[in-house]
């Protein structure tokens, strides 16, 4: 009996083992042979339901390096916070690295704000206190004129973030303002149910045309790109806003704003049949900055992020890059101004969207940093060679033509100040306050000290900072704008905290997981979490030194 029992037990054990082996053999036949699926590869057949749960890949989680830390608010910083922060290692020699990152020749300004700078921040914030509409939470673009764009709304958000981080406002006010704004955006009437209209009435939140009358005129990919940059900044810095932000962005239809070629497309309305016309939007400088905004949300904008086609022109010994697309053919001007390069530096640190680890002195989007340095250098050279204090950008002016592109180069002319319709308007050349502050923050040089002195008192304490100082001595541009004051505050925030975009906090996002059970993601061209293969490449371009 004992023997029989042992035999049965042995048989049972054998059967169990055999069953287990059989189950393993039949149910998991190739488990050990599974190759990790990489998005975009031939093996990318992961069901759509599962793709949203994959984590977005950044430098930190791919290479295992520590991500940058989110800096504390200025009022919470220890006194020794900035000790050694600008002590760059010896290897930080100016120029491109082997990985096409770039080390700039000039250091940014870092440290606590002085009383004078703090006063500037408070005055700039006054603009938004004065001109934010209670009904919608939107801020006027220009003074009390009740309209705004997404570009200028992003500037308002930059001012709001700066005000909070610089301890000008506290969290209750910050939350009230940003939630009001996001709620308004959640309900905005889109341009033909696609993307936000170019202009909105700030009091009513309705779509308007350029004369602020009800109507729709299309959408701007550049404006949306900048808005996306600040949505990502908000979401990374304040994860509790994530759902609100995702709800806003998930309403939009991205099927036309990003082409399959990786370019960005704006839209306008055909005069002939009222249909929607999509046209490539963006020129060198603005295009790459806006493209990075889309890339921060997982879109493939490889071609838009590339500098090519571009040309250079020599101005004061600097090879100034400008867009190589012929305006006569493409009917779009190639203005070279400071603004987009400043915003890339202040907000993104001239880093690639996936780079959350590189130190402040190393810019992984190398050619952007190098081009920005040229843009700075040519303006400094003009000052030292011609005497013209120069900090050029696009800016509003008082009265007609209301807006000018105060360019470093455009239409074949250096220092060309042109109106939107193409008139040469040198009388409107100016030291733009926002450009001066931005250059002051990113380049700690004697020249930016001069710029700083020129604009630091250029304000009305009750209203905000003026737009700028006319180059030809006509005085102050007595107009106040959201863009000017917002960028100014971002520049001051950069001095305290460095690049404003902080690393992704990790974890899944509704932005990637929503609508997985329906075709909405396909119809709206919503992206999947970016994987390493989706990263924008780090490129480099020939410098003047290399040519020599």
């Amino acid at each position, binding site marked *: 009996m004992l023997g029989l029992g042992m035999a049965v037990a042995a048989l049972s054990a054998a059967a169990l083992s055999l069953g287990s082996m059989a189950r393993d053999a039949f149910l998991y036949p190739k488990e050990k042979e599974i190759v990790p699926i990489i998005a975009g590869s031939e093996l990318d057949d992961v069901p759509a339901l599962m793709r949203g749960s994959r984590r977005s890949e950044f430098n930190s989680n791919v290479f295992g390096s520590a991500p940058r830390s989110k800096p504390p608010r*200025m*009022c919470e*910083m220890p*006194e020794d916070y900035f000790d050694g922060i600008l002590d760059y290692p010896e290897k930080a020699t100016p120029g491109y690295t082997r990985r096409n990152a770039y080390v700039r020749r000039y250091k940014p300004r870092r440290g*606590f*704000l*002085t*009383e004078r700078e*703090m006063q500037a921040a*408070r005055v700039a914030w006054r603009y938004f*206190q*004065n001109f*934010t*509409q209670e009904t919608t*939470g939107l801020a006027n*673009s*220009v*003074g*009390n*004129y009740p*309209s*705004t*764009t997404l*570009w*200028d709304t992003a500037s308002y958000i930059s001012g709001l973030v700066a005000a909070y981080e*610089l*301890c*000008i406002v*506290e969290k209750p*006010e910050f939350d009230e*303002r940003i939630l009001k704004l996001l709620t308004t955006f959640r309900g905005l009437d889109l341009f033909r149910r696609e993307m936000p209209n170019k*202009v909105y009435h700030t009091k009513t939140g309705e779509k308007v045309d*350029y*004369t*602020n*009358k009800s109507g729709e005129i299309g959408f*701007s990919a550049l404006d949306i790109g900048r808005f996306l940059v600040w949505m990502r900044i908000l979401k990374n810095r304040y994860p509790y806003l994530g759902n609100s932000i995702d709800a806003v962005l998930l309403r939009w239809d991205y099927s036309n704003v990003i082409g399959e070629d990786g370019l960005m497309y704006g839209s306008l309305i055909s*005069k*002939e049949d*009222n249909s929607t016309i999509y046209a490539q939007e963006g020129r060198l400088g603005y295009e790459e900055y806006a493209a990075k905004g889309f890339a921060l949300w997982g879109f493939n904008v490889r071609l838009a992020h590339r500098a090519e086609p571009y040309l250079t022109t020599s101005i004061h010994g600097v090879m100034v890059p400008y867009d190589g697309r012929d305006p006569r053919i493409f009917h*779009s001007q190639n203005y070279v101004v400071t603004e987009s390069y400043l915003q890339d530096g202040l907000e993104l640190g001239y880093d690639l969207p996936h780079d959350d680890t590189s130190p402040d002195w190393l810019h992984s989007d190398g050619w952007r940093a190098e081009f920005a340095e040229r843009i700075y250098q040519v303006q400094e050279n003009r000052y030292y060679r011609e005497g013209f204090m120069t900090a050029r950008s*696009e800016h*509003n*002016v*008082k*009265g*007609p*033509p*209301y*807006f000018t592109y105060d360019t470093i180069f455009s239409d074949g002319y250096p220092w060309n100040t042109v109106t*939107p*319709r*193409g*008139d*040469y308007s040198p009388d409107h050349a100016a030291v733009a306050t926002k450009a001066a502050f931005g250059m002051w923050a990113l380049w700690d040089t004697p020249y930016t000290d001069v710029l700083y002195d020129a604009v630091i008192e250029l304000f*009305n304490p009750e*209203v905000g900072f003026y737009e700028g100082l006319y180059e030809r001595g006509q005085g102050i541009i*007595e*107009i*106040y704008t959201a863009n000017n004051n917002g960028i100014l505050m971002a520049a001051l925030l950069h001095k305290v905290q460095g690049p404003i975009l902080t690393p992704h906090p990790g974890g899944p996002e509704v932005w990637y997981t929503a609508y997985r059970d329906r075709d909405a993601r396909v119809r709206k061209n919503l992206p999947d979490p970016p994987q390493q293969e989706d990263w924008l490449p780090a490129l480099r371009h020939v410098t003047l030194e290399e040519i020599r």
Partner: protein
Amino acid sequence: MALEKISVAAAMLAVSLPFHALGQAQPAQDQGQQFSADDAILDTSILFAIGAHQAEQTLRSAFGWATFQEGLVDGVYFRFDPDGYARFAQNPRLDQDAFEVVCAPRSRVCAAKKGELEVALTPRSEIQITVAGAQEKDAFSVTDGQTELPLPPRVFQPLDIRLETILAAGGELIVRRDGNDFRRIPLLGFNAVATYLRWVASGQDSTVFPRGWPVPSEPVRLTGAAQPAFQQPTQPQQPQVPAYQQIAQQRQQVVSQGAPQSQQPQPVAVAAQESAPAQPQQPVAAPAQDGNMAASITQLQAQLEELSKMMVRNGGVSPNPAPPAMVPQGQPVQPVVHGQIPHNVPQTIYPQGNPAHQGYPPQQVQPNAQGQWQGTRLPAQGSQDWNAYRDLLAARRAGTQLPRHQMPGQNVPGAQYPHQYPAQQHPMHQHPVQQQLPEQQPDMQPNPEIDQQTNSTERRLEALFARLNEIESRGGTPQSLTIHQQINPLTGGKTKQPAGMEADPAPSGSRQQLQPGSTDGSTSYGSVSPMDARIERLEEMLSRLLAERQPEPSEDRVDLGAGVYIERELVEEIIAELDGEIGIAGTLQPVLDPVQPLTPTEQMAPGKSETKAKAQSGSASPEEDEFKTLKDYLSNVLSKEEAIGN
């Protein structure tokens, strides 16, 4: 420590500036310079010249004009926005040597500026220039690079046809001080700018274009083009006759600061009345005109023009219209009358500034036989006569309008006297009954003769000199035509001078000497029978037009026959209109020397001037009583002229 201070300060600020500050009253920021859709006064799809086109602006801001118009005309490139902001320059970049035009918000009051030169339009659609920094002792001249023509000081008054033509011919305006060049201002684009100012003031009416202008075949309205606000019901009514001082001040703000100071609608019209109550306002055509009435008006206009041409042919005088009244040298620059006064009647001036502030009534100024100016005061403001005068004007404004004011599209003051050589005189704008030009081809048919006259100063001068020689050959004495001997800095000699121009001007020239045709026996037009037929025709049309409006006889009205009466002043004005079309340009005007500026009215028919003044003053005279009918009146006037001519 510093950080603590900052933190404390920030915290205090945060407490003191709660979020509900969102709703606080916005500061009284001067945002008047900001963009306003209501500032749109132009439809950029209506072309200013052949070859122009509407384009879209590259906007990145939250507001602005979505469209503009650009083109090339009269040798200059131009671009303008819906709010009238425009630039004119030889270079397509519109950068160097450019006229910049800025319009006062929500009005058609515009001014152009190039350097120190500022060009504006008076409410009577006359060009008036100013030169910043110019002084009284400065000398002004125009040069085309070879010859130089001195300009009289009245160049700073509203320009007459001759001065405007000279300036429009191009060249350079030279301001000399103590014998040295103080300013040299290129005049390239002057003609285009002047035309543009009139075009804007007239509401983009192509009839204001001068001869030779490449007028587009028809207004081209593109689908979806931005419509100017003035076409929208919410648009506030355009100020019709703003006070010129206020306009100038507003314009100065606009030009010097880039924008006016207030975003609110400018109460220009109200202010004009307040500041210059003595200035009668231009009557405004009723917005909706009866179609038959408009057709009749057009016919009447054509009849008038044809009548004038006939009289010109019979009288042997030039059809050029008259210049406005001139003020002799030494007289202060006078403000412009904003009333319904034709060019050939005395102008109202204010002897000591604005009567609203000085207490002086406006003064009628006219030259006497010696070329000296004398004034006839209008009734004092507030007096019974003044009230009667004002009522008279009000009645005229209300409904008794001259037919020419009812021309379609001419609903603004600037369009009523668009130019001394208005486009209506151009074949392409004349009534089809007269011209019978096919609709497809009239646009590009500039008159080569006019081109020759207007395209350069030299040609204009040559024409003028030829005209003088012609007069002189007939035995007339060009007494008032004197050219100052001008030393040409390049040649050291005199500039071109016509034969006989160095003769000492006779200060007491008789009217007989002034009358063209008076010595060569040419036929005067007083007794030409075809003209009588025309007058009868005119009577009929006036009777038909005005019968229903003025049925009641009155001392102030003239019997047209069949129990139809019209206001005497209207008759006066028609006479004045006829004068302007007929005789004045044929007479000699002191183009170059204002020492003896006999007005055309003085030269041609002094009696009419007197009558006009009396009519305006509300007084009656035995002479007026003689003219019971229009025919009588016209016959009397013409017989007087005939007597003068003989």
